[in-house]
C-alpha cells in the first residue's frame, strides 16, 4: 500500500469514552497507524483542517443545531462515515433507556431550550455502525482492517445471551439479577454478564429479540419489570405495522 488512508475523529454530545477506548488500543493503535493517517482529531491534538477524508468516525449524539450542521459538514467531505458508540448509533437511547422521551424544557441559552437527542443517521447517511457503550475497540480494529482489505464488515448475527452461554457463565436471570442479554445485539463478548453484572442493552436490540419472552423470564425470577421494556415492545409493534 503506497498511500495512507486519511481518517478523522469527531465528537458531538458524548462522554468521549469511545475515543478513550480507542486510545486504549495502545500498541495495536501504532500498528494501525502504519496504514492510516489521523488528519483531524481534537483529542489527538490535531486541529481542524477541513480536509477531504477517506473515513470519518463520529462519536456522540445530536443535541442541537450546531451539531446537525457539524455532522452534515463532515459527511460532505468524507467518503465513509462510521457511527461510533451508542450515542451516535441510537442517540443514547439504549444506554439511557429514554424511548419516547422528547422535548424536555431545559435551562439553556436561547435556541437550546428544548432538549433533543438523536442518532446521527437521522440527519446524515451512515455507512457503518459500531454500537456499544463504549464502542468495542476490537470491533473498531476489525472494521479498520476490513475497510483496508476491502472485506465485508457486518453485524454479529447473535445476541449477548448466546455469547454468555459460550463462556459457560452462570445465568444472572436465574440468580434474580436483571439482564437484557437475551434481547441485545451481541459482539461485546458478553463483557458485563461475565463480570457478574446484568446486561444493560447498550448495543441496541438484537434482530430477533423476543421481548415478551424476556418479560416472562423477569416474572418467573421475581425481577421487577422496568417500564422501558413495555415501551420497547410498543415501538416494535408500531414498526412492524409500518413494514
Amino acid at each position, binding site marked *: 500500500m503506497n498511500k495512507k488512508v486519511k481518517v478523522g475523529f469527531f465528537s458531538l454530545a458524548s462522554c468521549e*469514552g469511545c*475515543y478513550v477506548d480507542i486510545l486504549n488500543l495502545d500498541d495495536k493503535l*501504532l500498528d494501525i497507524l502504519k496504514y492510516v493517517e489521523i488528519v483531524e482529531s481534537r483529542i*489527538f491534538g490535531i486541529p*481542524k483542517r477541513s480536509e477531504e477524508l477517506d473515513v470519518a468516525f463520529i462519536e456522540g449524539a445530536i443535541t442541537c443545531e450546531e451539531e446537525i450542521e457539524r455532522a452534515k459538514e463532515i459527511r460532505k467531505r468524507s467518503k465513509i462515515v462510521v457511527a461510533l458508540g451508542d450515542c451516535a448509533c441510537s442517540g443514547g437511547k439504549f444506554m439511557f433507556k429514554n424511548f419516547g422521551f422528547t422535548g424536555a424544557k431545559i435551562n439553556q441559552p436561547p435556541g437550546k431550550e428544548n432538549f433533543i437527542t438523536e442518532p446521527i443517521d437521522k440527519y446524515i447517511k451512515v455507512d457503518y455502525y459500531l454500537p456499544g457503550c463504549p464502542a468495542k475497540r476490537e470491533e473498531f480494529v476489525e472494521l479498520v482492517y476490513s475497510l483496508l482489505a476491502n472485506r465485508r464488515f457486518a453485524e454479529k448475527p447473535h445476541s449477548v445471551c448466546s455469547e454468555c452461554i459460550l463462556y459457560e457463565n452462570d445465568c444472572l436471570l436465574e440468580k434474580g439479577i436483571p439482564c437484557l442479554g437475551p434481547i441485545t445485539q451481541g459482539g461485546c463478548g458478553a463483557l458485563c454478564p461475565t463480570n457478574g453484572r446484568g446486561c444493560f442493552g447498550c448495543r441496541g436490540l438484537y434482530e430477533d429479540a423476543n421481548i415478551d419472552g424476556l418479560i416472562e423470564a423477569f416474572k418467573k425470577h421475581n425481577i421487577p419489570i422496568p417500564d422501558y421494556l413495555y415501551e420497547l415492545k410498543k415501538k416494535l409493534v408500531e414498526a412492524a405495522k409500518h413494514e
Partner: protein
Amino acid sequence: MSKRELSINEIVRIEGHLDVSIYLSDGQVNRVQAKAIEGTRILERFLVGRSYLEVPEMASRMCGVCSAIHKVSSVQAVENALGIVLPEKLQKLRELLVIGGHLHSHVIHMFFFILPDYYGKDSALDLLPSDPEFVKKLIKIRKIINDMLKILGGSLVHPITPVAGGFAKPIYKKNLQNALNILKLLRKEIMDPVRFELAMGIPELEVKNTYVAVTDGKTVPLLHGDIRVFPSGKTYKPNEYQKVIKPLREKYSTAPHFLLDNRETYYVGAISRLNINHPYLSDAAKELCKEFNISFPMDNPFANNIAQLIEIVHYMDVAEQLLNDLISDPPKETRVDFEIKAGEGIAVTEAPRGMLIHHYKFNSEGYATWANIITPTAQNLKNIEKTAKAYTEALVNLGVEALLKFEIEKLVRAYDPCLSCSARFYKENP
C-alpha cells in the same frame, strides 16, 4: 481606542469542547470568558425514575476519561442513601480501582496532552518519527495501567464491577497478586517520564487562588472526608456542600459555573489536594519533591501539572500498601446484603480533576426521584477565566502578545479540563 477580541476556538488536547474569548482594549484586558460549547447532555434528568441499580451505570457515562471515579462516587451515594456500610476490605478494593482511574487519567493528561507542548508539537503522535522509543514507552505505561484497571474494574472505560453493596464479581488473591506485579512494572517504567516533566518546570505566574479539596487530616483522601477551603481553613461536612458551592448561570456557556459563597472563584484538582493534604504524601513522593525543590502550597495555576506528577508517585505507593494489605488478608465477601428503602445520599469525592459531588434521593421502591451532580471542571471554569486574565495581562506587559494563543491554551490545559462532564445543566422549570 483599539478594541479587539481574541478567540481561541476548540482548544485541542483537552477532553470536550471549550472556547476561550479574551476582550482587550488599549493594552488592557477587560474580560476573559471560558465558554463550554459542548452539546448539553442532561444526565441528571435521565437518572430520575431509574432504579438504584441503573443510576450508577448511567452516572458513569458523565465522562469517558474518569469513568471509574464517577461510577464509584455514584455507587457510594446510592449506598449512603440506602444506609449500606461497606466492610473495610471492600472499601480498600474500591480505593484501588479509583487509584487505577487516577493513574490512567493523569498519564493521559501529563504524557499525551501536556508533553507535546514541551516539544512545540501538535500531538504526541508527532513525536513518533523523532523519538519512537519514548512514545512506545509512554504507550507501554498506558498498557500497564490498563491491565490493572481490567483486573479491578472488568472494563477499561466505564468499569463494571462496582455495584451497590460491594462488587459484582469476586476479586481473588491471585488477581491482587497480578495487580501488584503490574504495579511494580509500572514503577520501573514511569519514573523517567515523570522526572523528565518535573525537570522541564512550569511558567512563572503567581495568582492568589482559593483551593478546595476533600480532607481527612491523615491521608490524601479520594473517597471520604470533609470539604476544606484553603487558605481560609474553613471546613464543611459533605452534606453542607449546597451552603457553600453556588451555581451561576452564564449565557455564553452550556456548562454551569460555580462560585464559593456566591463571590469567590476557586480551584479544584491535584494542586488543591496537595496544597491542603501535602503533609500526608508518601515518603517516595516527599523525596521526589525534595529532589526537584518543590514545596507545597504553590500559588501558580500551572502547578496543577507538578501536583499530578507528584500524585502519580504517591498513588503508586498507596496502591502498593493497599495491595499488600489485601493480599495478606483477602476479602471474604463480595457483596453485603441490604434492604431497599427511601433515602437521600451524598458522595463527595476527589476525581482526577478535582472535587466531585454526587447527590441523589430515592423513593421507597429504590427509584431515583432527584439527582444533582457537580463536576470538577464546571467548578474550575470561573477560575480559568480569572487566571487566564492574569496571564494575558502578564504577557501583554511583557510585549509578547504573539504568544497569547499558545500560552493561554497551555494554561487552560494545565487545569486538565473535561467538558463532557460539565456541559449539562438541567432544570425542570427554567
